[in-house]
């Protein structure tokens, strides 16, 4: 048995596999029995074969550093995370509800702006936000769907309840790693699968294709879908290629496309120009079209917005969808659910203090050591202060930042992220996790079974971002009794 299984203690956090008393959770029992029966050397050789598989499959991501870009092998922990189908069904319904409400919101703010007029969400925080894109006003994408692909970050508290931490509506990434993690586990721990029925995850590209194809402006049996990537040096290039291949779509860069005088989008092919129906853009809208947004962008396609506004091409996620991807707007999602759907939120949000509100700000400034402070408009875990883990100097620095630009900061109570047994340096130790499921919204709404679990590989750390040393785990949603 590997060191660390005996006397494993999550230390007051909810552990996804092992209870406080040290016994396996029901769904994890079979898996733990097998993993604990493996001799130490065996565990290590499985880990090595996982590393090898990752290198051979070329699963990598790019990290930007001052010294240039480094292509790193995907960090992976071989012990899967296990969630029961029953738990997941409820989360999944909650995520669908959220996605519906968020799309209603985006559609509303670019059209009637009812929610602003009714004072549910203050108009200025929407209309003055850099994420509100004036060129999108009056647009009406099919099915009222703007954020077709959403990656929501979830965590579990001490009681194991799921909370949504944020909704990524711009160009969420990570889904390819979700699929590849399963593939690696199949290769290195095939015995684990014997006693389980695990919901498959490898049909994601197909579901994505169905969602995108529904958006096509031309009614064709097989619409032309392209994945628009910023290029090989983007940190998620691996994923762009993975999805294009999985969908049988073309992977294009800006220079492969052009908009002709008929305001339609074409790609340059060896047979001449070919019309494009749907662009799945993995490029920020700021860089998407130098005519409409940043003129200095060399990544985009001049005229793409024009073609979209004429209804000649569908773009996913729709330009402007990022208006709902803002940590201040996040605080209003429960209100949106009640307002647009007349329903009670099915999945929890984290209580959020908006520094722009005086009362909230006073509370935040007085309680910095207890709180997590985040800039409203950053992603990748940058610019975050985790109060309990930060020095007094950092607290003071953030107090200054907040006072200077209160609109740009929110604060949340420090959540106790759940843990799972993780194989680190030859031992089993608890490590904190989050979970990013992906929600597809077209005519229908669909949620991945599970998602991408990210692990903070450093002891006690809550930072799970792969760009900052985080790892990942295969995530199982298991049906029935195991």
């Amino acid at each position, binding site marked *: 048995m590997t060191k660390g299984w005996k006397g494993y203690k999550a230390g007051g956090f909810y552990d996804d596999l092992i209870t406080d008393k040290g016994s396996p959770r029901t769904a994890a029992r079979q898996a733990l029995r097998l993993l604990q029966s493996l001799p130490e050397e065996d565990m290590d050789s499985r880990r090595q074969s996982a590393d090898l598989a990752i*290198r*051979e*499959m*070329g699963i990598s991501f790019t990290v930007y550093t001052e010294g240039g870009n480094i292509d790193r092998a995907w960090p992976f922990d071989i012990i899967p995370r296990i969630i029961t189908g029953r738990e997941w069904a409820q989360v999944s319904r909650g995520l669908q509800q959220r996605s519906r409400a968020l799309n209603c919101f985006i559609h509303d703010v670019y059209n009637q702006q009812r929610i602003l007029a009714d004072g549910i969400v203050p108009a200025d925080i929407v209309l003055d936000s850099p994420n509100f894109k004036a060129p999108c006003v009056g647009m009406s994408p099919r099915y009222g769907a703007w954020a077709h692909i959403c990656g929501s970050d979830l965590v579990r508290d001490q009681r194991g309840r799921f909370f949504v931490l944020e909704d990524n509506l711009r160009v969420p990434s990570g889904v390819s790693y979700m699929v590849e993690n399963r593939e690696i586990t199949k290769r290195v721990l095939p015995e684990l699968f014997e006693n389980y029925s695990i919901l498959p995850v490898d049909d994601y590209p197909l579901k994505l294709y169905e969602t995108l194809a529904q958006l096509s402006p031309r009614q064709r049996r097989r619409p*032309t879908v392209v994945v628009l990537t910023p290029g*090989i040096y983007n940190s998620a290039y691996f994923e762009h*290629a*993975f999805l*294009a*291949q999985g969908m049988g*779509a*073309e*992977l*294009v*860069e800006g*220079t*492969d496309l*052009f908009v*002709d005088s008929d305001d339609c989008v*074409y*790609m*340059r*092919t*060896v*047979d*001449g*120009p*070919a019309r494009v129906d749907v662009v799945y853009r993995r490029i920020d809208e700021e860089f998407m079209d130098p005519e409409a947004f940043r003129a200095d962008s060399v990544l985009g396609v001049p005229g793409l917005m024009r073609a979209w506004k004429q209804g000649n091409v569908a773009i996913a996620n729709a330009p402007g969808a990022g208006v709902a991807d803002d940590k201040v707007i996040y605080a209003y999602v429960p209100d949106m659910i009640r307002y647009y759907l007349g329903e009670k939120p099915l999945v929890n949000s984290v209580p959020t203090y908006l520094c722009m509100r005086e009362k909230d700000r006073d509370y935040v400034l007085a309680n910095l050591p207890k709180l997590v402070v985040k800039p409203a408009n950053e992603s990748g875990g940058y610019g975050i202060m985790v109060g309990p883990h930060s020095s007094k100097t950092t607290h003071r620095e953030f107090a200054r930042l907040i006072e200077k630009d209160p609109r740009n900061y929110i604060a949340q109570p420090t959540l106790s992220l759940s843990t799972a047994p993780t194989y680190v340096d030859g031992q089993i130790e608890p490590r904190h996790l989050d979970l990013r499921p992906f929600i597809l919204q077209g005519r229908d709404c669909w949620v991945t079974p599970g998602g991408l679990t990210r692990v903070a590989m450093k002891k006690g750390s809550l930072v799970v971002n792969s760009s900052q040393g985080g790892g990942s785990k295969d995530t199982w949603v298991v049906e029935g009794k195991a």
Partner: protein
Amino acid sequence: MTMLSSVADRLYWMSRYLERAEDTARLVAAYNHLIMDIPRGSEPPWDIMIRILDAEQAFEERYRTVSEQNVIKLLIADTHAPCSIPFAIKSARENVRTTRDVLPEDAWELVNELHLYVAESAKSSVGRRNRQTFLAEIIARCQMINGLLLSTLSRDHTYRFIKLGRLLECADMGTRVVDVGAGDILDRAGSRAAIDPLLWGALLQALSATSAYRREVGPIVEQDDVVNFVFAQANFPRSVKFCIAGIREELTPLRNNENALRAINRLRRRLGRLGKEALTREELHAFIDEFQLQLSALHQSISDAWFRTDGS
């Protein structure tokens, strides 16, 4: 099936680089055999391979003296020189990395593994002891990748541009080997008649043509027969004629192919004139020189017609 111009471009180069890596490995392996068979002092100089690969400049930038060690280091262990095996494989890998979506699933893994193998083994394979194993492994892995592509790709544009790249590179390498190799043999004509068959044999071996030649022509290896075989044998898949015919076959169904067809027809006519009479060393060299120029014109017309991304 649509094919992006930029993707066609990368596929073509992936294929050229893979073929180049394999051909370079064959060339070095054949030379290795030769030096063990031949009396000391009568072997062609080490830099003959540098001349065949047009790598004089890269060599001079790195080394002062022409020695076995230096030549082999450049060809099989240097990661930056465009004539080296690691460079060709790295470039092939970069091109596969950006075309994974049109290739069979295993293609990326195989090319990536080849890249990892070279990165790990090249340095320790410079010495004679590991050299042959290394080269054999490169050749085998390249063939495996070719086999995968040949047996799983639909016969559409993806296959077409891969085939174009491979055949063009193969024709290019064949003409280079004959040009420099035959030149070296002819320069010493008469003086060492006893070893001439060994040299011509090595030349065939460098092109993987030994057994095909034996069956087609016979066991006796002679200049005119060898040159004719390498250039004009219609059935041998590495002969220049076979490559040119294959390229023509793939160009024909493409749109916008007028210039490329014109270039390929010029090459065919030139090949047709070969073998009518015996060539002197100078005539052979002049013939190949002209042929090489026309091959590069063919490459240019392919690139102009299908890879350019600025026009539409």
